[in-house]
């Protein structure tokens, strides 16, 4: 049983991590923008609330639109690369050189994503002050167990 669980855990880990392992994750989409757990639409909504200055708010909105567009394009390139990589893993005749060619493509894509990520963060930083920045990226508030209990008790009253 333990061995079976270990095997299943191994399979699950392969499912989750091989894409990142092969290609990299400089410009993450799945774990949120810049790996923050926040997706672009949510950030846009928050920016609209926290940035009072209209000119800067619009500029940030435009930047987020650009980021969203680039994330979509990156996701397309990444999916195409993953498809080729999966085919190579299937192919018994695929050589180490075949993989090295794929890895070079992956590294090029990841390198571009790295530059994009760093450049976008700098642009956002130049348009958002410290207070707004904190409010924008603050982690979502999680309800405590006590709060849930209180809520349940109130509902039961």
């Amino acid at each position, binding site marked *: 049983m333990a061995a079976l669980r*270990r*095997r299943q*855990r*191994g*399979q699950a*880990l*392969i*499912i*989750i*991590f*091989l*894409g*990142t*392992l*092969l290609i*990299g*994750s*400089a410009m993450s989409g799945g*774990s949120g923008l*810049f*790996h*923050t*757990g926040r997706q672009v639409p949510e950030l846009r909504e928050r920016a609209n609330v926290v940035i009072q200055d209209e000119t800067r708010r619009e500029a940030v909105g435009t930047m987020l639109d650009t980021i969203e567009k680039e994330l979509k394009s990156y996701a397309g390139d*990444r*999916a195409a690369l*993953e*498809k080729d*990589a*999966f085919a190579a*893993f*299937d192919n*018994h*005749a*695929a050589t*180490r050189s075949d*993989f090295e060619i794929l*890895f070079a493509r992956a*590294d090029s894509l*990841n390198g571009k994503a*790295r530059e994009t*990520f*760093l450049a976008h*963060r*700098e642009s956002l*930083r130049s348009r*958002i002050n*410290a207070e707004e*920045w*904190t409010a924008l*990226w*603050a*982690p979502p508030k999680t309800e405590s167990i006590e709060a849930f209990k209180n809520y349940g008790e109130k509902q039961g009253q």
Partner: protein
Amino acid sequence: MSEAVPKTVTDANRAALVQAAIGRLESELVGFRLALDTYEADLRSLNARRDVQRSQLAERLDLFDVERKAARSRVLDIHMQMIGATTAEEWKKLSTYERAALVASGR
């Protein structure tokens, strides 16, 4: 995948080599998971601070990339060991397991 090996690879010596490779692959991915978790936590915390400079973030991105490429290279070694221990016909059957996992990993 492990369960399919005895049914697919009939030669005991080669089957043992494949099983050992699957074990190494699992360990490798567990190690990579830890590195990825740390990396994501670090990035989240660095990004949350507006005063963090581009160079500081770049340093963390590059550090992870070095770890990732080393892990990828070890995973490729393991994959090639499995290929070396199987025939094309056997791999056709075994790769369906790997294939399902790899396809899902792209989502």
